[in-house]
Every structure is written in C-alpha cells, then in structure tokens.
C-alpha cells in the first residue's frame, strides 16, 4: 500500500526512528542531552544573541578556526567512542561469546569511526589551524574570501550533523569508511546508511574544496611586503601543498560520490555488478582522491612540527630549501601511488611494480624531512615543552609506521598482509602519531596566540605520555595480530587461534588513550579556570620566530594594526636579535568584512537538501535546493559587505596593547 503520506515523506517512516539497538540509542540520546544542556545553558545565561552575533555569523578566520577545532574535538570524542566499542567487541567476541555489539552495529561502528575521524576530526583540526594561523603567519588581516571561508565551515558542520543524525533516524553505512561497491550498491545495502555516508561527505567535501581554493589564493596573493615565497614559514608552505592537493583531489571525490548516488537512486550502472558496470573503477577513483587525502592531512602536521622544532630548539630550521622541495615532491608523487591500496586487484606485475616503486620513492622526501628535523635539534638548546614532546613521540612512532608502509609497498608482501590488522596498525601509526600528534602540538603551541593564555604544561605532558604509551599498547599488538593472519573489521574469531590476549592488550591501550583524552579535557578546563595565572602578556610566550608572535595575545580581529614588512625568514626572531627600536607606525584605514548570516543559512539549506536526498523526500529536496540558490544569489548580489576600520581607532587600540607590553617589561 502506498498512500500519499508515505510518498510525501519518501522512505522515511515513524519506524525509522532508532529504537531497537541500545548502543546507538544511547549514543543518540546522549548527543540530544548534550545539545539540550547547551541550549539550557545559553538560555540561562542569555547568551543567544551573543552567540549569533559574535560566533555564528562571524567571518573572522580566528573565530572560525576555534569553531572548527571545537567541532573536530567533539567528533574526535565520538570517533574515539566508536574505537573503544570496537576494541571491546574484539576483546570479548571470541569462541562461544559474540561480544558486546550485534554484527550490524559493529559494521556501522567501524564505518562511522573511519568516516568521522578522517572527515570531521582530522580535517576539522587541519582547517582549524589553517584558519587560526595562516593569515597571521603571512602577515595579513584576513583570508582572500572571508565569506566563502565561513560558508565552508558551515558546510563542514552540515555534513557533521548529517552523520550524527544517522544515529537517531535510520542507520549509518555498514560498508566501511570508503563504501566499496558492489556492497555499497542498492542491491546489497538497501537501507539509507550508504546515502547518509554519501551526502555527509559530499556536503563537507564541497566545503573542503572551497577552503582549499581559499587558502591557495590567500597564500599566493595576500602575503605581506617582503615575504617572498622562500621566506614563508614552513607551516605556510605545507598548507600551500595541502591546498594544491585539495584542489586536485577533492573534485574526484565529488564525482565518485555523485556516481555512486546515481547508481543507487536512478538505477545507473557505473559500479554495479550487472549492466556493464565496473566496481574496480570505483576503487580506483576513490583512492585517486584517497591517497592524496592522507597527504593533505599529514603535510600541515609536518608544517606544525617544522615550526615547533625550530622554536623549541632555538635554531633556524635545518635545510629549509630541501624541506620545500620535499613538500612538492610529496605533492606530485602522492598522485602516483594510489594503486598500492589494492595490489590484489589483479592489475598485473608491471602495474603493481610501478606503483610499488613509486610508493617506496615517496618515502624518500618524507625521510628528508625527518632528517632535517633531527638536524634542527642537533646542537640546539632544546626546551622540552609539551609541543616538543608531541614532536618527539611523532618522530619515533612515525618512522616505525613509515617503515611498515615501505614493507607493504612490496606487492608480494602486500598480498600476504592486505586488509589485515597489520595494515590497520600501519595507517593508524601514520595518522595518529603523524596527523593527530601534529595537530595537538599545533593547538598547544598556538593556543596562547588565540586565547591569550597558555595551557597547563604539566597536564599536557601527562596527556602526551598517556597517548604515547596507550598508542604503543593499542597498536603493536595489531601489527603482530596482522602477521598472525587477523583480518580487519573482524566481528568474531575462534578461541583456538590464540589471538585473545593480544586483543585484550590492545583494548587496554585504547583505554589509556581515552585517559589521555580525559586529561586533555581536564587540562583545558583547568587552564580556563586559572587563565589569569597563565596569561600571555608579552604576546611571545615561547620565544617564537615568526610573525604571529609579534602581535599581542589574543590576536586582535584585524591581526596587525600596521601590516608588517619582512626582510628575512623568521622575521620576528631576526628583529628581536637585531633589537630593532620601534619605527613610528603609520596607521591607515582598513576595510574589513562585515559579519553575515548567509553562510549558516546556505548550510541549513544544504543540510535540508542532503537529508531529503538520503530519504528521497523530493519535495523537501526541491525546497532545499531552491533555498540554496536564492540564498547564494541574495548574498552575491549584496555589494555592501565591508566596513571601514578607521586609522584613529586602530592607532588607539594598538597603543593600549603596546603600553601593556611595556608595563610587563
């Protein structure tokens, strides 16, 4: 029976609301309760107007960066919960016991874990740091396209909301984090899970693509006077590399997701088993995006480490030029290795040989970078602050993980360990100790510049030790299990295999990592409560080298009262060394972008469209699309998007912060 009401709501029924599975229900309820708590808190303190004016409509990259990082940390916690559940399942689901999760929930959990960690945790932290620091590092006031930047953030949020809606309404994809067909085709995944996956990534991915364009243009066009390319801080170079990768890789993701959706919705035959479709084409396409993606994530982390290691070794970065060339070698080579994700496809010895060799070659520029960092430390006066600890944890673990990667680059070896836990352990070593440690270091390092006070160092160090020890305990067993033959995404195994003790050790490791996260949260709260004690009055808490430390902390919304002019690398360090006496500043009027609600409105319509496309509610989809078009036209027709910050006002505010600095000295 198909009544009108049913058609109007597409596939959505009252029974779609999640009630059966206790784990998912619990997660959905806790998210709702958390949301409710925030709403009550905001109403109680009368902060709604403040939230809307100062944050939701902001176009200031520093505020957007803060919001990116908040969302990313929430998603890191959600993805971490998924990880804990997987560890619990694999430690208990052995022999006659079938563990704590049903197999369908387990499949959704590992799919959600990968999706959320890559797209919403790691990408969120990365764009957060881009927004916070790139304008400051290149000596400018803003990104090239402030409104586009805000829209990117809100699209990222819309994707994030869609992923989490799947907890309560319907289900999430159970086809793994990259949804390989034919499993992800309608025939084998008839539910809405894969559609949720497609649309959350599609919406967030378009946001990422626009951010990539934005930061490329920002770095190429908005550097201050005297900052030639070869004087840019290494974080800016690596972000430029990542932006180029985003520009070339993300359109491929857009196409691939779009084609999969067409297959599922309009009955096309791109990747279907019948009709002449080619499932391996999907795997090629998704990894033509996916492999550059891992370098998109890691390059900015490399950049953070380059800044951190130079600052805390009190030396200029060793081998600046070779670092730059290493970045561009990685950018280029990252497009020539994607097939190593599926050597077992059967492409033949020549093809596998080529991609195997290219995979080994791409380890060379990475090795160059590792040695450059080590040589920077050599004979430096190293200060073991927590960002530096994250770096040192990284350099050990990352090298081990990298060597494991080179092992897998050998096609015959890969045939043995393909899709095993060895692979899982390898890429977690790269992404946790590479990407995540890098972003943690970056957040700790730049926190005072954004908020005006430092994070508690002691708690930061405890968190680091928990993360590192927990990481080793959680993933070394997986390397061993992988070599013993344990495959990834394993729901259940026989007790005769003797794997259980290792899985239990891995579970303990995961709990220690969770403890590290708890300590980080305590560190944040503790530092906020004691912020007067940790206040950074000089604007230069670490004895820094680059431009961002030359402005007061927290950095004002306009960043620089007078745009700087640089004559060397590490300009702030050089000027401190030369003891330059303040040159009289010449203030001029500045035009700044006005806050706008268009970004969030566009994202709400995009979310509406995405939700409707998941559930085939075509009327709502039409409304969403129409709203989207009207909102974009409305915004683009607005010529009055800027205001003038007068020279007098700038001078007044700048003098106050200069006086504060003098007072401290």
């Amino acid at each position, binding site marked *: 029976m198909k009544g009108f009401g049913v058609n109007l709501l597409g596939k959505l029924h009252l029974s779609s609301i999640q009630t059966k599975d206790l784990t998912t229900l619990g997660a959905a309820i806790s998210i709702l309760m958390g949301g409710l708590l925030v709403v009550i808190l905001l109403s109680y303190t009368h902060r709604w107007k403040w939230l809307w004016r100062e944050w939701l409509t902001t176009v200031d990259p520093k505020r957007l960066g803060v919001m990116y990082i908040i969302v990313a940390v929430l998603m890191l916690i959600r993805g971490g919960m998924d990880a804990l559940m997987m560890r619990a399942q694999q430690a208990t689901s052995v022999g006659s016991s079938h563990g704590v999760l049903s197999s369908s929930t387990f499949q959704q959990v590992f799919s959600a874990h990968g999706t959320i960690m890559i797209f919403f945790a790691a990408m969120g932290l990365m764009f957060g740091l881009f927004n916070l620091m790139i304008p400051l590092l290149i000596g400018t006031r803003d990104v*090239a*396209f402030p409104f586009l930047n805000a829209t990117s953030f809100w699209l990222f949020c819309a994707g994030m909301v869609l992923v989490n809606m799947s907890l309560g309404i319907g289900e999430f994809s159970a086809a793994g984090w990259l949804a390989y067909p034919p499993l992800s085709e309608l025939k084998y995944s008839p539910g809405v899970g894969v559609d949720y996956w497609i649309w959350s990534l599609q919406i967030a991915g378009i946001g990422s*693509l626009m951010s*990539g*364009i*934005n930061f*490329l*243009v920002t770095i*190429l*066009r*908005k550097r201050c006077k005297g900052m030639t390319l070869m004087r840019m801080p290494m974080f800016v170079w690596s972000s430029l590399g990542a932006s180029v990768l985003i*520009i*070339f890789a*993300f*359109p*491929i993701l*857009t*196409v*691939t997701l*779009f*084609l999969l959706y*067409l*297959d599922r919705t*309009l*009955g*096309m*035959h*791109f990747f*279907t088993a*019948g*009709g*002449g*479709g*080619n499932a391996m*084409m999907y795997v090629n*396409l998704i990894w033509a995006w996916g492999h550059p993606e891992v370098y998109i994530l890691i390059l900015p982390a490399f950049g953070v480490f380059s800044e951190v290691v130079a600052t805390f070794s009190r030396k200029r970065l060793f081998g600046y030029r070779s670092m730059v060339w290493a970045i561009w070698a990685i950018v280029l080579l990252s497009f020539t290795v994607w097939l190593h994700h599926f050597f077992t496809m059967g492409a033949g010895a020549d093809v596998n040989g080529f991609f195997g060799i290219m995979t080994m070659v791409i380890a060379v520029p990475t090795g160059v970078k590792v040695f450059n960092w080590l040589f920077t430390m050599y004979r430096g006066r190293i200060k073991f602050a927590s960002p530096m600890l994250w770096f040192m944890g990284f350099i050990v673990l990352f090298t081990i993980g990298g060597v494991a990667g080179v092992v897998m680059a050998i096609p015959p070896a890969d045939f043995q360990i393909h899709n095993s836990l060895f692979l899982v352990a390898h890429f977690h070593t790269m992404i946790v100790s590479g990407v995540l440690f890098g972003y943690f270091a970056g957040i700790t390092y730049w926190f005072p510049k954004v908020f005006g006070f430092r994070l508690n160092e002691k708690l930061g160090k405890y968190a680091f030790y928990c993360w590192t020890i927990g990481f080793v305990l959680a993933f070394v067993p997986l390397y061993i299990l992988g070599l013993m033959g344990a495959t990834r995404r394993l729901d259940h195994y026989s007790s005769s295999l003797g794997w259980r003790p290792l899985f239990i050790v891995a579970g303990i490791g995961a709990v220690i990592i969770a403890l590290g996260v708890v300590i980080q949260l305590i560190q944040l709260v503790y530092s906020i409560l004691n912020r007067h004690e940790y206040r950074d009055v000089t604007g230069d808490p670490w004895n820094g080298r680059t431009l961002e430390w030359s402005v007061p902390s927290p950095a004002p919304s306009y960043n620089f009262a007078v745009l700087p002019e640089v004559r060397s690398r590490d300009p702030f360090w050089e000027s401190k060394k030369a003891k330059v006496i303040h040159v009289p500043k010449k203030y*001029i*009027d500045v*035009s700044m972008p006005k806050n706008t609600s268009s970004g969030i409105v566009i994202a709400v319509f995009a979310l509406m469209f995405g939700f409707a496309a998941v559930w085939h509610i075509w009327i709502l989809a039409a409304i969403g699309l129409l709203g989207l*078009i009207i909102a974009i*036209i409305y915004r*683009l*027709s607005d*010529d009055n998007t800027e205001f*003038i910050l007068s*020279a007098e006002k700038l001078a007044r505010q700048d003098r106050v912060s200069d006086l504060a600095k003098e007072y401290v000295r």
Partner: protein
Amino acid sequence: MTETDVLTRKDILKEERMQRDSTRIFGFWVYLMTDCVLFAGLFAVYAVLHNNTFGGPSAKSLFSLHLVLTETLILLTSSFICGLGIVAAHHHNKRLTIVAFLLTMMLGLAFVGLEFGDFYHLASIGDSWRRSAFLSAYFTLVGTHGLHICVGLLWMAVMMFRLLKGKLTQSNIRRLTMLGLFWHFLDVVWIFIFTIVYLMGAVRA
C-alpha cells in the same frame, strides 16, 4: 585633518579594492581548474565504460552528428557573442553589453533545449541511463555539462536583472568577466565532449 590626508585614504581603499578584484578573478580561475578536474573524472569514467554497452546500442548507432554539430555551432557562437559582451562591458557600454548577453542567453537556451530534446528522445526509445554502463556514463558526462550551462544561464539572468536595474559598476564588470570565463570554459569542455563522445564514437567501427 588636511585635504591630502583624505585623498590618500580614498586612494588606498581604491587600490585595495582593485587588488581584491584581481584576487577574486584569480580565485575564480582556480575554481575553474577544480571544475576541470571534475570533468576530467567524468571523461575518465566515460573512457572506461564507453564499450560496456551490455547488449544495448553503441555510440555509433545512437548519435546523430547533424544535431551535435548544430549544438556545437550554437554554443561556439554564444561564446563569441559573450566575448563581445565582455569587451563592451570593459568599454562601459551598458546597452551593448545587455544585448550581447541576452543573445548569449537565447543561444544557451536553444542549446539546452536541443540537448534536453535529445535526452528525452533517447529515454523514450528505451535507451535511457538505466540501459547500460555506457549510457549511464554518457548521460552523466553530457548532463553535467548541460547542468553547468543551466547554472550559467541562471547567472546571466541575475546579471541582466542587475544591469537593467543598476549601473555598469566596477563590481558588475568583475562579475561579468567571471561569467565570461565560466561560459568559455564550458565551451572548451564541450569541444572535448564533441570530439571524444561524438566524433570518436562515430568513427569507431
């Protein structure tokens, strides 16, 4: 405040605005490159699937070169006239700009109409995108181009509305320049579709 102070302030802001305009056009170029990668993906998919007809019709039996040539000529002409419109805009000739873009729009609409008619015809004789992987790839590649043309037409409509209501301001000229880039870009993509999908489809045995 002296008069010279006021003058320099204005000059500085004006220069800033000029720089921002050129940055925006550069940004638009970068966007076009991402679109280029998107089409490259669709062309690659078409190249992989174009022989997977699954017992259905092949490119040779399906496409009429007369129709496609007409479409091509219409689109090329529209691009030429659009180019004239941009020149007129840069010469601050508002009337000529409007005329040129209205003509471009009419040609664009004719192109979309022909393409839609062709799609409708194919679907009605049972050769829709469901028929085979080849047809899925064909409809998606050519359809995505058609969708871009529709976006361009919508953009032109909005710009014409702006021009009829207001002046040919610097910001409008910048928008028209970007629109022109977009339109020429779609033309280039069409040349590839014409060559790879239609011509190469026709000569293949």
